[in-house]
């Protein structure tokens, strides 16, 4: 395939270049000449069968800016990436910085040039372009190197070593070959090194002592065949310890012998210089890549360190949570007794006090009523007050009597017959005691339920111990709603049960607990105008297994998407040193119980509609 | 205070209680009786005056319309029935319309006007509270002596301020102190002392309360006169005795020994020029009142001196003038008009002639008069009592040869001593309404003081007055 070469420029210089190039390369390339770069725009492109533009020989005019010229050249679709030779007679070029930065300029040829050299450069650049843009099988050879230095630099190391030995022996006569086994130290770090070794065969490793006391092997490959060369540079001790790692054949030279060889045979110097140069450049490359590797390593190390730290923190947090859980369970257990005592005491008091008050039926009534915790709504209270006021004719007394729970006009009449103040005080005391009892019982049952929750959380499998019986699910739902009656006053509750809801095997108390927790959760989430819907039915899955399905649906604001997967995780959070069971201790317990019943529990939620769906295997399936 | 909302007119709705309705009906019915039925021994003028008197009696007793409205009604009826402008002309009018209207500007009313302006100035420049602080603070460690100081101060302030204003001022000073007093009985004792002392203090001078003014005017209408000083001379022995008894009673019954008062009334005498002018003007007026026998300037004129100075120096402004208790002045004027009308129409003689007074011993008569007045004073407004009783009482005095000054003093004092019920006097009403005293407290105290007072008035004081040269 024929390459395409452009020569751009006008004037004698351009014409001379055109002539030399087309004379020389005419057979391998088609050379087009243009006077100015804008002429390129009209050029249709390379001839058929020719390559893209491989080389542009640019001869800029006096006033032309080279950067601009080059940019207009590479803008042509047929010359996306040409080699560019600049032929100029300017002594200074200050307008090729952009092109250099892009590495567009392959070379600068100053006029006058040695006749034939422009053609040679052209040839070489075309060959380089073809190597970079291979066409077909053949990759053209670059023209051979003529100078010694470049030749030596391109020789294989062994060859160069051989030539060095030849040159040395020409100057000094034959040198004995020294044969060394593996593990011999040829040079020692920090010891004077006043001789030179030439490794003819075998391998030598270089090592330095590391700051931690061990020895750090630098490498094998970058060890050149000459050991001790660097030490010669400033007559200091050796920088490294060189040790044979295979059996080696070496030649030893004193400084004086080297000196004599260098003086008598200029070839020794040339080869020595190239070898030294090559050894140094090998070590430099090595050092550079080591440095890059080290930086990368450091980065990875830092990352690992961070990960480790995070992992440690997580572990500590987990351990703390686990401990907290243990402690909580322990406390729950320990609380059981005092809570039981509290509850029993409240009951005893509630039984004994009326008996103590036996002579005073009003006070006993008042006490019982206050204990029940029932409160009149404002409308009833006003009516009661009016009725009492009609008897006692004193708004203050009427308010206090009604507040104490005395609303029956008969009782009122009986009360105010005697000493009003004493009677009132008596009744108010009784009401106060009743209210205190009520508070006591409420507090005790609150603690008890908390303790129970903690206990279940700590030992969720305890219900496994109880025998699982076939249970009517609807029954358990009803029981739960009954238990929750006081919390459901502001909520509309509807229960729909299909006739074919299967019985399930389980502990009914546990299931009641599940519904209780789900309903409580729903009620908490809803505002006062909430609507709660519980549906029960039977479903059969794809494996034709029958399930009892219970869906608890509310119209609350819904569970945020990011929380949905976590709602069943029974968890404690510690915020500001306070342990909270915030996010669904109840749901966690429900989850555990359902799981123990071999069932599933799921959540589907969006604002305005949240459904918890529980499936429990039908009893007949488990038998 | 808050001025963002105006008063609500619909609240001023006509409240017509059953008593009001009955009062109006009875008044209307009685009005026609003397006019339609021929009253024996009474000429047409007298019959018309009797109609007016009956209407006034019923309306004062039932308060079917406000007392000051009754007062205005009296004047109106007198003009329309007794004067030369009568709708049905009289052969011999009892007086000119001008003379009936004149009741509204009677010298006694002028005296009162000055007294009111001075009293309101005392409130405006906080003289009353500062005096209270000055007088009470030294006694705060001993509640019993503090009570005595409080009563004396109230009585003295009551000489120049109306009873209501005195009581309100003292309650304003004392209520915060009383609220901090844990002992409820002591609280009640202090709260009782204020109406007691202001009612009794109201006897002290002609300007102290309306009955006094009505008595002064009625006596003057019969050609006699009581000077400011001689009034005080006559009343102060009675005041001191009654205050002493009242104090002993309250101390024994209510205020325990060793009680201290949490009394921190701020005292900040106003020293602005206007305040100093006020002190000077009121001091001068009081001095003129006290020295009347020496210079002869009538007390009403002295009072008007204060009015002129206070208004002229802008120490008291038009607003202050507007805020005066004109209803009280009109009520007094109504009483004066009623008394004047009764005399002018000859109704008094007819009324007195209904009973054969000669059969009644003189001493017993005075005692009976005092008792009746006191009983009425308890049930009615003291001023209304005086309005009704004094014209008749003085006529009686003339007919049986008693000194009219003695009877005037006695009736004024007796009507002021009616203070058994919350409704008897405004100070009582205030004390009761603060919730610190009960009706029974007021009744027992008022009964005790009234009983002793009436005995003293009927049996002792007329002789003392002769001894002191007040009457002669």
């Amino acid at each position, binding site marked *: 395939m024929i390459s395409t070469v452009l020569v751009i420029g006008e004037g004698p210089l351009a014409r001379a270049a055109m002539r030399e190039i087309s004379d020389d390369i005419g057979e391998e390339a088609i050379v087009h000449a243009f006077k100015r770069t804008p002429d390129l725009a009209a050029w249709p492109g390379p001839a058929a069968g020719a390559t893209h533009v491989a080389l542009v020989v640019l001869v800029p005019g006096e006033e032309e800016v080279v950067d601009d010229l080059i940019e207009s050249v590479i803008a042509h679709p047929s010359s996306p990436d040409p080699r560019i030779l600049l032929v100029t007679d300017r002594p200074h070029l200050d307008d090729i910085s952009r092109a250099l930065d892009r590495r567009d300029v392959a070379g600068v040829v100053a006029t006058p040039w040695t006749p034939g050299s422009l053609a040679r450069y052209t040839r070489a650049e075309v060959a380089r372009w073809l190597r970079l843009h291979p066409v077909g099988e053949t990759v053209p050879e670059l023209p051979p190197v003529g100078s010694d230095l470049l030749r030596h630099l391109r020789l294989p190391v062994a060859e160069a070593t051989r030539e060095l030995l030849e040159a040395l022996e020409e100057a000094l006569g034959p040198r004995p070959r020294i044969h060394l086994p593996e593990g011999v130290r040829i040079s020692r770090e920090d010891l004077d090194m006043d001789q030179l070794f030439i490794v003819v065969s075998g391998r030598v490793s270089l090592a330095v002592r590391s700051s931690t006391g061990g020895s750090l092997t630098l490498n094998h490959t970058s060890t050149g065949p000459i050991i001790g060369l660097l030490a010669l540079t400033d007559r200091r001790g050796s920088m490294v310890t060189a040790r044979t790692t295979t059996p080696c054949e070496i030649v030893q030279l004193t400084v004086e012998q080297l000196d004599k060889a260098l003086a008598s045979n200029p070839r020794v110097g040339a080869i020595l210089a190239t070898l030294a140069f090559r050894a140094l450049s090998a070590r430099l490359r090595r050092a550079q890549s080591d440095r890059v590797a080290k930086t990368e390593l450091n980065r990875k190390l830092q990352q690992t360190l961070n990960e480790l730290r995070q992992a440690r923190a997580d572990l500590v947090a987990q351990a703390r949570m686990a401990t907290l859980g243990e402690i909580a369970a322990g406390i729950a257990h320990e609380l059981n007794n005092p809570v039981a005592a509290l509850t029993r005491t409240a009951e005893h008091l509630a039984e004994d006090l009326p008996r103590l008050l036996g002579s005073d039926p009003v006070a006993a009534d008042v006490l019982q009523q206050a204990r029940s915790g029932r*409160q*009149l*709504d*404002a*409308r009833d*209270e*006003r009516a009661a007050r009016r009725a009492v006021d009609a008897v006692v004719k*004193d*708004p*203050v007394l009427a*308010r*206090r009597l009604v*507040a104490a729970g005395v609303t029956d006009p008969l009782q009122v009449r009986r009360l105010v017959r005697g000493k009003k103040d004493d009677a009132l005080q008596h009744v108010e005391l009784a009401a106060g005691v009743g209210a205190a009892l009520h508070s006591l019982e409420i507090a005790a049952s609150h603690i008890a339920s908390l303790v129970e929750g903690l206990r279940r959380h700590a030992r969720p499998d305890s219900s496994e111990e109880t025998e699982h019986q076939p249970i009517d699910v609807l029954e358990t739902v009803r029981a739960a709603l009954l238990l929750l009656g006081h919390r459901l006053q502001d909520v509309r509750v509807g229960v729909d049960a299909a006739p074919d809801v299967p019985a399930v095997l389980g502990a009914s108390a546990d299931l009641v607990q599940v519904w209780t927790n789900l309903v409580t959760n729903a009620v908490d989430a809803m505002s*006062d105008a909430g609507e709660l819907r519980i549906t029960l039915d039977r479903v059969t899955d794809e494996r034709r297994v029958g399930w009892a399905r219970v869906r608890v649906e509310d119209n609350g604001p819904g569970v945020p998407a990011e929380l949905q997967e976590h709602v069943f995780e029974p968890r404690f959070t510690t915020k500001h040193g306070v342990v909270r069971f915030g996010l669904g201790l109840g749901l966690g317990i429900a989850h555990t119980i359902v799981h123990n019943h071999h069932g599933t529990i799921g959540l589907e939620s969006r604002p305005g509609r949240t459904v918890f769906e529980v499936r429990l295997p039908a009893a007949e399936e488990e038998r | *205070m*808050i001025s*963002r*909302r*105006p*008063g*609500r007119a*619909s*609240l*001023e709705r006509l*409240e017509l209680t059953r008593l009001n309705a009955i009062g109006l009906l009875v008044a209307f019915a009685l009005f026609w009786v003397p006019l339609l039925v021929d009253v024996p021994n009474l000429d047409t003028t007298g019959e018309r005056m009797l109609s007016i008197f009956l209407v006034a009696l019923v309306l004062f007793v039932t308060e079917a319309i406000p*007392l000051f409205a009754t007062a205005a009604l009296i004047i109106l009826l007198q003009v329309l029935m007794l004067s030369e402008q009568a709708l049905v002309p009289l052969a011999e009018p009892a007086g000119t319309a001008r003379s009936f209207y004149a009741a509204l500007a009677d010298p006694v009313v002028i005296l009162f006007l000055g007294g009111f302006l001075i009293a309101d100035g005392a*409130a405006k420049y906080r003289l009353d509270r500062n005096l209270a602080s000055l007088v009470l603070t030294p006694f705060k460690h001993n509640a019993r002596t503090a009570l005595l100081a409080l009563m004396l101060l109230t009585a003295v302030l009551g000489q120049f301020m*109306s*009873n*209501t*204003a005195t009581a*309100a*001022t003292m*309650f*304003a000073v004392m*209520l*915060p102190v009383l*609220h901090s007093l844990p002992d409820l009985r002591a609280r009640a004792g202090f709260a009782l002392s204020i109406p007691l002392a202001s009612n009794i203090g109201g006897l002290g001078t002609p300007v102290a*309360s*309306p009955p006094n003014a009505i008595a002064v005017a009625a006596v003057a209408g019969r050609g006699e006169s009581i000077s400011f000083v001689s009034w005080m001379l006559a009343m102060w022995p009675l005041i001191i005795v009654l205050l002493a008894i009242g104090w002993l009673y309250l101390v024994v019954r209510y205020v325990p020994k060793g009680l201290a008062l949490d009394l921190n009334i701020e005292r900040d005498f106003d020293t602005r020029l206007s305040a100093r002018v006020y002190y000077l003007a009121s001091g001068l007026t009081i001095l003129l009142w006290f020295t009347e026998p020496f210079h002869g300037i009538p007390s009403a004129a002295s009072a008007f001196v204060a009015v002129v100075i206070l208004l002229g120096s802008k120490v008291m402004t038009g607003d202050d003038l507007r*805020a005066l*208790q004109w*209803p*009280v002045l009109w*009520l007094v004027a109504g009483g004066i008009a009623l008394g004047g009308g009764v005399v002018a129409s000859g109704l008094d003689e007819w009324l007195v002639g209904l009973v054969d007074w000669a059969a009644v011993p003189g001493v017993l008569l005075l005692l009976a008069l005092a008792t009746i007045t006191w009983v009425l004073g308890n049930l009615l*407004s*003291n*001023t*209304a009592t005086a309005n009704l009783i004094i014209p008749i009482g003085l006529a009686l005095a003339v007919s049986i040869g008693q000194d009219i000054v003695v009877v005037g003093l006695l009736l004024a004092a007796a009507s002021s001593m009616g203070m058994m019920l919350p409704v008897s006097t*405004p100070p009582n*009403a*205030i004390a009761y*309404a*603060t*919730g*610190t005293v009960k009706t029974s407290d007021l009744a027992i105290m008022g009964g005790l003081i009234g009983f002793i007072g009436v005995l003293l008035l009927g049996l002792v004081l007329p002789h003392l007055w002769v001894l002191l040269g007040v009457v002669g």
Partner: protein
Amino acid sequence: MKLTILVLEDEPDVRAALERDLEPLARTVRIEPAQDVDDAREVMAQVEADGDVLALVLADHRMPGTTGVDFLCELVADPETEHVATVLVTGQADQQDTIKAVNLGGLDYYIAKPWDVAELDAVVRRLLTDVVERLGISPVKHLAALDPVRSMDLVRHGWGDR
């Protein structure tokens, strides 16, 4: 005629506590409890029918249905009830809301829960005195529920000897 204080609060316990703390006034002033705004309107109708005068409303901030703030603002805006003193009893002093209510709604006062009994007493007395003054009614029958010092000034100036 009695002045009436309406205690509008949905929590029975809080309502009872407020009434208890107002007890010193209860022999002089009629005190009526209400649990929501509808209930309050019922009370107002009853008070009117009895010939009494609604003088002051203590309303809770947050309540189901119409809030206390709205109710109080309605009272202020209605010429029939504009004389009524309005007090907001607020639990969570939601600054913005409260400020808005007091400033824009023209409410007279707000009391933070938990309230100080002495403050409540002083505020109620002060506001009742304002109402008496505003309506120009005789303060005498209501003295026991009014500000002791200011009510006596009213007595002095507005209520003469008889």
